[in-house]
């Protein structure tokens, strides 16, 4: 049975950043784009996921609709400046491939850096944003609803049961992790940025996002230091006055172009008296090194140079790569679960038909019974009616449950035909072809409630 789902979009694997940035949707743009898609009658259900690395639309196309062209039209509505046609950057996956793609994306397996943690939150946000849109029928119907919930659960399982998310995989995040393991919360910590190198600034930005209290910037060119300090809401200091600041800082990021060490053990020793031997994290990413290696011999100093950080990142990347097979197994099981759930939808109209028929018989027989037992008091009639309902539910519960289970386990068309034959249900009671059912999946909720006792 083909799942009526598609994913169309661009990702870091199909499009360069110049294209992706033009197709990135902000939070307000997402709602407008989804509503436009729905109003154009292109989709039944849709969720738009837009991150730095991808812009993808997960959708259940409208009857007879073409998912690829619908999304191509949606993207083309933007003022694009790209080389060649847009469709050379677009990809489309359908059915089970689309399901697997979402599950892999949510688990961080399709990310630029395997195991990336942020994507799960971004998928959740995209799902919630589409769910929150007030449309009739809802833009996130039973199929996408189930798909995204399963994807998020599966992503969570991958993160908690494998080492896919263990260790950080960029120099900046390693620096943040190190600072976290030394200081705990970074809220009250002070950073000294020596030099104005790009990596140093990246790390300073990452630390700022963690809420460090202040960033002091010292640079050979004072103007550049002032500009950087303004960016981080910190203060600029001349390079020759760093010893005055050292006693008060917790983290030093060094990336000057100086040909000799800027920080020596003697300079730091003096500051230790004032700083009362508080721990100090020094990240030296300069080549040649800015910090005398013997500084790391002080028990309170944790000194990391660029090679140390690179080695850590490489180890983490290898660790994550080793977990991909394990993660794929979880995703495979989740895909099968979703497929089984969708397969079980096919029996919903049949169950509804069986229950409808049973209900008609029950009412007819009750009417006949009450006619012949006219002396029954109202409360006795109510009891008999209640009894008949409970008996009917009990008799139907097992066959309907077994029917659903059978479909979920892949019994397929032969089971459906057998049930139709046994209960004398004609094809009109069914929802027809897969594509038609895909356009309008039956509501499982009612059947579940009826089936419960």
């Amino acid at each position, binding site marked *: 049975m083909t799942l009526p789902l598609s994913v169309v979009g661009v990702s870091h694997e199909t499009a360069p950043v110049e294209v992706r940035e033009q197709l990135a949707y902000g939070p307000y743009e997402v709602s407008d784009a989804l509503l436009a898609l729905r109003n154009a009658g292109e989709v039944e259900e849709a969720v738009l996921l837009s991150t730095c690395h991808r812009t993808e639309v997960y959708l259940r196309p409208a009857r007879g609709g073409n998912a690829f062209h619908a999304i191509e039209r949606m993207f083309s509505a933007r003022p694009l400046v790209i080389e060649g046609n847009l469709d050379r950057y677009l990809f489309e996956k359908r059915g089970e491939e689309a399901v697997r793609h979402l599950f892999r994306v949510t688990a961080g397996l399709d990310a630029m850096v395997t195991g990336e943690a942020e994507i799960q939150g971004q998928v959740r946000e995209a799902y919630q944003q589409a769910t929150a849109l007030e449309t009739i029928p809802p833009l996130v119907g039973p199929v996408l609803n189930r798909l995204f919930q399963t994807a998020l659960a599966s992503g969570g399982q991958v993160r*908690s*049961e494998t*080492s896919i998310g*263990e*260790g950080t995989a960029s120099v900046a995040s*390693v620096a943040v*992790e*190190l600072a*976290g*393991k*030394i*200081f*705990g*919360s970074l809220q009250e910590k002070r950073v000294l940025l020596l030099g104005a190198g790009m990596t140093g600034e990246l790390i300073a930005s990452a630390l700022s996002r963690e809420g460090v209290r202040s960033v002091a910037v010292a640079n050979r060119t004072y103007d550049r230091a002032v500009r950087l300090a303004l960016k981080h809401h910190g203060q600029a200091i001349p390079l020759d006055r760093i010893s005055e600041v050292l006693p008060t800082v917790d983290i030093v990021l060094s990336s000057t172009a100086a040909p000799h060490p800027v920080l020596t053990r003697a300079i730091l020793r003096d500051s*230790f*008296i004032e*700083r*009362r*031997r*508080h*721990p100090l994290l020094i990240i030296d990413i300069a080549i040649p090194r800015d910090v005398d290696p013997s500084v*790391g011999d002080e*028990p*309170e100093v*944790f000194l*990391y140079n660029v090679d*140390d950080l690179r*080695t*850590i990142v490489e*180890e*983490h990347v290898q660790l994550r790569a080793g977990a991909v097979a394990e993660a794929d197994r979880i995703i495979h099981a989740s895909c099968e679960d979703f497929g089984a759930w969708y397969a079980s939808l096919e029996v919903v109209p049949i169950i509804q038909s069986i229950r409808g028929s049973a209900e008609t018989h029950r009412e007819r027989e009750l009417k006949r019974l009450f006619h012949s037992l006219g002396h029954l008091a109202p409360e006795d009639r109510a009891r008999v009616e209640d009894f008949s309902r409970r008996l009917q539910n009990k008799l139907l519960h097992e066959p309907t449950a077994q029917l659903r289970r059978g479909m979920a386990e892949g019994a397929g068309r032969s089971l459906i035909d057998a049930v139709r034959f046994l209960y004398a249900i004609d094809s009109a009671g069914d929802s027809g072809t897969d594509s038609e059912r895909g356009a309008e999946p039956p509501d499982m909720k009612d059947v579940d409630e009826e089936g419960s006792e």
Partner: protein
Amino acid sequence: MIHLSAFVFYVGALIPWIFLLFRGARGHTVLVASGLTGVAVALHAMALVDFWLTFGELPLGGLAPALSSLAFVGGLALVAMLLSREVARVALGLLPFVLVLQGAALALGIEPTHRDLDFQGVGFVLHVALAFLGLQGLAIASAAGLLYLMQHHELKVKRLGRLFRFIPPLATLERVGRVGLSVGFIALSLALVLGWAWTVQNRGSLEIDDPKVVWAVMSWVIFLGIFAARRVRGRNEYRSALAAVIGFAIVIGTYLALRLTSGGGGLFL
């Protein structure tokens, strides 16, 4: 029997913690470890109450009951730590100590002394409870100190592996150690004051040649030593952690030495 059940649950709680340490966070491991610890402490409480109701004496007098009660105070500290996500993992450092105490109590046989102690009543219960709290405070500081030294080592050798990820941040461990030391020191000081007040009032002397008193005073001095290690030449966290571990080892070592040489006679020392 209930004491043994508590011990089994303590052992059971240690297994997921070790699993967590070597395999990293997986599924509900932390929840399982916390749940088993909680059950162990609840059973332990039941066992001590049962002892009291059955024999009509508090489990504080004889060596085995006292060790079990000391383990229980550690169990309570474990539960308190497990309630805070930030410090829950320090439990791995304290749990083995609780296990050893309860295991030793079981091995010795948790039996009543059937002796009428001179020092009884609320004063006695308070004295022993405070002394136990003091010891457990030192045990917590030592557990946090041990983890601090391990994390410090991982950071120094630049190995950001499972141990690095399992152990809480240095700042958290330092804080736990500081709280353990402060609470422990205050509790032990009060226990000593209570004990001495009773001794002077009832026996007319301080009985400083009693091994129990020697050990308690020495433990108190060790507390002072650890505080001094923290303060000399600035607030040296590394030195403080090291001092807590060594100090605790000395306290335990001295207890065992005194116990073996003084022929304790079935009481705590």
